[in-house]
């Protein structure tokens, strides 16, 4: 327990839901990003998986749409402390994308249109826990939430779910991405409150 601040009670929290520590519930969908919202037309959009040997696997928008689709319903946890429960998405499981990929890499660096990057262990992108999603709440994913397509890795803080995702580079050695270089945690498990480096 921290140092008590005299006179602080906190909000009444009788019906507090089961949230990760330090999170509060929000109903709206806040927007957080480091710069302006990129607008990426779907006719030029592509997603590129690059292995540690430099082999490239590419998908156009039409090719992505033709892959088997998942409809995950997941909770989101943002490092800025809001959580949003029961969000519904549609997209392609990364397991599907990795099917044809031969790799011994253990790490991944996701990168976005606009230049944003974020790192994750490759295992966290597999096993039915991560998607490239293009539909939110039944409609096309709005640009401010990362449309036309974003990564969705709901078991990690939301900055790992790179918006405007453009590709994933597989790496033998871990390399920090944009926020991680700025002091945020390399892994980012909300249940362990891994917000900043050293948590």
């Amino acid at each position, binding site marked *: *327990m921290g*140092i008590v601040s005299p*006179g602080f009670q906190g909000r009444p929290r009788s019906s507090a839901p089961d949230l990760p520590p330090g999170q509060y519930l929000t109903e709206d969908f*806040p927007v957080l*990003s480091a710069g302006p919202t990129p607008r990426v037309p779907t006719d030029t959009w592509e997603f590129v998986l690059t292995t540690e040997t430099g082999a490239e696997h590419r998908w156009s928008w039409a090719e992505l749409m033709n892959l088997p689709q998942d409809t995950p319903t997941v909770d989101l946890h943002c490092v800025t402390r809001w959580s949003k429960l029961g969000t519904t998405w549609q997209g392609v499981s990364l397991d599907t994308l990795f099917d044809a990929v031969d790799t011994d890499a253990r790490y991944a660096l996701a990168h976005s249109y606009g*230049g944003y990057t974020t790192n994750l262990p490759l295992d966290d992108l597999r096993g039915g826990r991560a998607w490239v999603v293009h539909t939110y709440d039944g409609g096309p994913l709005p640009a401010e939430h990362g449309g036309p397509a974003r990564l969705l890795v709901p078991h990690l803080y939301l900055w790992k779910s790179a918006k405007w995702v453009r590709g994933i580079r597989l790496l033998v050695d871990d390399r920090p991405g944009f926020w991680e270089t700025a002091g945020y945690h390399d892994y980012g498990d909300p249940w362990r409150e891994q917000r900043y480096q050293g948590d």
Partner: protein
Amino acid sequence: MAAPTTGRVAPLTWRVARLVERRIETPTAQTLLLDVPGWPGHLPGQHVDLRLTAPDGYQAARSYSLAGPADGERIEVTVQRVPDGEVSPYLVDTWTEGDPVEVRGPVGGWFVWRTDETAPVLLVAGGSGVVPLMAMVRARRAAGSRTPFRLIYSARTPDDVIYADELRRRARDDQGLDVAYVYTRQAPDGWRGEPHRIGLADVNSHGWPPDLEPLCYVCGPTGFVETVADLLVGLGHPTRRVRTERFGPTG
């Protein structure tokens, strides 16, 4: 968007801060001066997390921008009271000199301005979004920098302008600093123009043309930041030169 150049940073620890002094800025905003033993220093634009703990162990934490440049173990934040908020009313109304609050930081390595930068700077603030931008204005002055600065500040009414006196003084004395205001609800007497939300004309006439390759910093409520950043990109500013900080879920 280039990666920030801060490199790997040391783990951030919670430190105990005590309130030293408060300054009333507007009817709803106050500047709080805190004493933080062991404070490592910071760059203008970075923020801290403040954490409150209730007697039953419950904790709530929120982010607040650092309002001034580094000054030893003294830091300052400017907090706008959000009606029925959990943390900001405590900081503004209840927190008493000498009482502890936990602080962690500095956080953020992208929305920062370094005093050795020479590119012209455009600052666009909505409401309390002026706080980190003011830290940049103050750091510029403290470093004797001559980098040209323009600040466009959108407030509801003249009474809602944070740092009003200091901004008036600096616009007069700090050479190369221009300050322009946009009022959304009520403009001062003698003001030319009607209250309005910031738009293309404001950004166009009070900003820099893209060919001067300015660095643009936009801070405020989410909707405000979204609007201004889109306007800047529409005017031809490259996205990597437009840095944004979004303050909250509403706006």
